[in-house]
């Protein structure tokens, strides 16, 4: 299977097309089957991935427009591998736990198409291909929010679409400009990211390009103050939409930073550490406080997403292996945990058709299994050790401490403010006496729901206790990237700040 990546990318889309001829009753089963095959394929990818190789693997390269250097260029490294696996997993679980009853077939087809674009973004190594998938991913999400959403769905969907689209257009300009510079320098056109890596740019170019890419990625992340589309999108989207949005789509932004901004503009990245860290700290604290003020359970989770993305952002700009590996790991962790939390909110919404916390209270006594799983995910969300949430957060903070102790302490307040809003959600919804009559007869998790959560709980605990299988490949690729950034950096300041880890004994053996 040399072209497993192509299979991974296009299998869902082809299956999605075929899905149109599947009859309505079996659409769901069909979706689950396809997503399961896709997930197994991605697992196979992981199994056959050489964890000691820090470079790109499973590379596929077919020139598309040779004159302009555009090619169909795919590959994965330690950083993208697990994002792909997480994408397929969350899609599978999302489809399996889906509670939508109308237009199921369309939803399944949309989700499969969305899966193609998400996998495509993570495996694309050609900027144009990357950009194609990046923009294409907006369409299914627009449709999901706009067609299955709440009362304000059109507003939310359009806001989401236009906002992110605007950002990525600026990014496109940046990409074209990089290609242009590349052409000027080498005389050939190329859109391959790996070629671009070799480009050493002067500082002012780096800064401008960094800004262009930043806008595209930051809106997607979403960074403060570009985050306001997110609460609307989450508030209006159906559960499955929120799950995918929080788990995968937001990661595309942070992944973009790792894939493009850091290695391509090392000096600009170093210069922008402080502004980005300040924005991230605002994100962490401010949105956590906003989350605390929410009355709607789903909005709390939505804002908490923003808050956690702040941690991911700050880790990325730690410029050392601890921080960046932690940040990538935190992407996975946040994907799983926030996805699960949105699914959990969906469970209660299906039963009561409200997400207001004041409508609940005392649910722990009525729905103990639900309360248990919510509790586990809550603890993972606030970063309890031995859950997946801790590993990333700890590494991020460790990493950034080297850059700035004061800002680390400020960002570290996330463990406090995060606990504040999460525990207050839990207390308002699950603790206290049961006050509402209609809550007394609520059903606990059905087996279907339970079985969608069990894998997530298992992952949360497994990767919390033994993150090595995931963390090590990530770390290898990140170390390689850092070494390369350090070599490429042109200012002394950047060389000082980018910290190349000592090559461990293990890695030396491999070489």
């Amino acid at each position, binding site marked *: 299977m040399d072209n497993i990546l192509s299979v991974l990318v296009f299998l869902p889309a082809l299956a999605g097309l075929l899905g149109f001829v599947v009859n309505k009753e079996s659409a769901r089963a069909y979706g689950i089957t396809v997503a399961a095959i896709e997930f197994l394929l991605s697992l196979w990818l992981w199994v056959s991935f050489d964890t000691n190789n820090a470079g790109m693997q499973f590379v596929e390269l077919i020139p598309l427009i040779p004159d302009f250097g555009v090619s169909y260029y795919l590959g994965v490294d330690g950083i993208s591998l697990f994002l792909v696996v997480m994408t397929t997993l969350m899609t599978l679980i999302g489809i399996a736990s889906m509670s939508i009853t109308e237009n199921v077939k369309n939803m399944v087809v949309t989700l499969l198409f969305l899966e193609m674009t998400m996998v495509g973004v993570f495996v694309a190594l050609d900027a144009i291909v990357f950009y194609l998938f990046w923009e294409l991913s907006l369409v299914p999400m627009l449709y999901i929010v706009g067609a299955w959403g709440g009362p304000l769905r059109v507003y939310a969907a359009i806001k989401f679409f236009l906002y992110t689209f605007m950002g990525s257009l600026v990014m496109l300009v940046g990409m074209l400009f990089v290609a242009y510079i590349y052409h000027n320098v080498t005389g050939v056109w190329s859109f391959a990211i790996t070629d671009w890596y070799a480009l050493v740019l002067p500082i002012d170019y780096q800064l401008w390009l960094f800004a262009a890419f930043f806008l595209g990625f930051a809106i997607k992340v979403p960074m403060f103050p570009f985050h306001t589309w997110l609460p609307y999108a989450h508030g209006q989207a159906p559960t499955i939409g929120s799950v995918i949005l929080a788990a995968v789509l937001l990661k595309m932004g942070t992944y973009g930073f790792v894939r493009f901004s850091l290695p391509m503009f090392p000096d600009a990245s170093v210069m922008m550490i402080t502004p980005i860290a300040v924005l991230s700290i605002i994100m962490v604290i401010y949105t956590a406080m906003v989350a605390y003020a929410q009355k709607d359970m789903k909005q709390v989770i939505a804002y908490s997403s923003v808050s956690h993305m702040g941690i991911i952002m700050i880790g990325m700009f730690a410029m050392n292996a601890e921080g960046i590996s932690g940040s990538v790991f935190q992407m996975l962790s946040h994907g799983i945990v926030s996805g699960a939390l949105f699914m959990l909110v969906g469970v209660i919404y299906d039963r009561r058709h409200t997400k207001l916390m004041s409508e609940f209270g005392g649910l722990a006594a009525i729905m103990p299994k639900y309360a248990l799983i919510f509790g586990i995910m809550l603890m993972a969300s606030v970063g309890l050790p031995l859950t997946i949430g801790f590993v990333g957060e700890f590494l991020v903070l460790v990493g950034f401490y080297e850059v700035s102790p004061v800002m680390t302490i400020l960002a*570290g307040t996330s463990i406090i403010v995060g606990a504040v809003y999460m525990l207050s959600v839990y207390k308002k919804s699950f603790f206290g006496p049961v006050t509402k009559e209609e809550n007394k007869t609520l059903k606990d998790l059905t087996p279907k729901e339970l079985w969608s959560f069990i894998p997530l709980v298992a992952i949360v605990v497994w990767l919390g206790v033994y993150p090595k299988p995931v963390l090590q490949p990530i770390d290898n690729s990140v170390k390689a990237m850092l070494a390369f950034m350090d070599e490429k950096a042109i200012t002394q300041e950047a060389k000082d700040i980018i910290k190349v880890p000592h090559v461990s004994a293990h890695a030396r053996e491999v070489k």
Partner: protein
Amino acid sequence: MEKLVYIALFAPLVSSLFAALFGMMPKKQFVGVVTSILLGISFVASAILAHYVYTTEEAIKVTLMDWIGAGDLHIPFGFVVDQVSVTMMTVVTLVSTVVHVYSNGYMDHDKSFNRFFSYLSAFVFSMMVLVMSDNFAGLFIGWEGVGVCSWLLIGFWYHKPDVSREENPSISPSWAANEAFIMNRIADLGMLVGLFIVYWNTGSLQYDEVFAQLPHLSGSVLNAAALALFIGAMGKSAQFPLHTWLTDAMEGPTPVSALIHAATMVTAGVFLVIRANPLFSMTPEISYFIAVLGTFVAFFAASMALVNRDLKRIIAFSTLSQLGYMFAAAGLGAYWIALFHLAAHAFFKALLFLGAGNVMHAMDDELDIFKMGGLKKVMKWTYLYMGLASLALAGIPPFAGFFSKDAIIETAFNEGTYILWAILVVTAGMTAFYSFRQVFLTFEGDERYKKYGFHPHEVYRYVLIAMSPLAILAVIAGFFKGSFEAFVTELLPEYHMSEHTHHLAWLLGLVVLAFAVGGIVLAYKKYAKGLKRDEALEATWYYKLLANQYYIPNLYEEFISKPYAMISDIFWNRVDMKIVDATVDGIAKFLYGTGDGARRMQTGNLSNYLNWMAVGAVLLLAVAAISAAIIG
């Protein structure tokens, strides 16, 4: 021996998971039995390890597997069983086992019986990780783990509604649980920062590697690390100003209070300081600060205990006060004395709490000691236990507390910190007073409970038997002071009194004893005959100040909780909606408005279009001409 280490560590985990299997089912008696047995196994393993370490004088180190590895950071799941950790292990598992057995009786009628044991065993597991870990990160796992278990257990009766602070100072179990968790989190941030400082300056989090590196570090780094770690310790050990959660945590079931909020978890902070003694002994300023804070908290908490009416809260304040003593000892460099007091305190304080649990059980969860009195007739054994524990707490020879607490006070004198010494001596007197005020009000005097319609009765016999090991240890633990010192100073720095102090030791002891006996006598005079309320005293400002915990919870509420909620609300409604989001919408509206305005150009008249086109063409031409002129 490795196997024993794992047995001691994982038996509580197995126990917790076993109980969790039945967590959502109605009460199953065997759950309680099985978990108790598993805890017993853990205790036996710990005891054998203790014996092994005692005889061979060598530490056992095991590494289970890698945990986190990124960059240059490598954290394994490594465990070390040395003199300090084995002491803690033994104390923790012993008290836990007793509490487990006790809980079989205490939680007898609770519908969440199985769940309770699951949490309780999970707590023991976390505590074992905390004390056994051979690195700071592992300690932090346990640190947070006990925090969560404490959250679960304080909020165990989560169904109770929130009430006003006047009605119940803790508002509700779930409120108290959240308070405890969040306050601990604040301190944990300090702890984390401590870890970061340690890691970036020594390149490791393993105790032995870190301590080996310490002499090469600058003073400011050491101070920062020590301070940050101590902030972590302050949270877990409820030192001022993060102390309010501990008394509120009394909302949890009483066995929980005994195990977590008296004997084990709250001493984790002291354990950390003892564990990291090479660091703290190199930072005299921070250590002195620890000692001063400890002394202050000892006095401060004791003062609040003087007037409290709540049985459990009095004991909680006394726990706080005793933690202050431990920190004072550790801060003054007498680490082994701190550890000794920690162990001794664990025994008699757990006993005291369990006794209080018996009383509560008998009094249908009534906690107001003003409504009790004369219980000695029906609860002979409990009276005996609580009396013994209180004697130990008051520091009356030959009970355990005398040996440990006296040593601390002597240390304060020996270090020349006479002010601290004086405060500690006065506090010892206060301790004796409030302990016996409580005992006398509960067990002696008129039977006020009859008025309120209670029918107290003694608890199950096996519960009383289960408590007996604690009672015995509370009595005799002090006799092992010498051998304990020899044992733990293998690892901890030795601490000797100077010649001068040595000569005065008997005198100093007498002073302390005098204060302690004085306190008891005063309590006996005032309360043994029955409750005579002194309205005038109760109306004074200082009485009210003490009864309201110096109004500190109110201050926190007014100046932290409420502003936080208010600012959050402003951030959401004003900033996020009205500024950030409105800006985005504003841009959209502007574009829409421009489009709407430009629509008027679309008259449908081709001639107008042509005019516009001409205008555009001329403009473009002009631009081209001008730019050509500039460039060319």
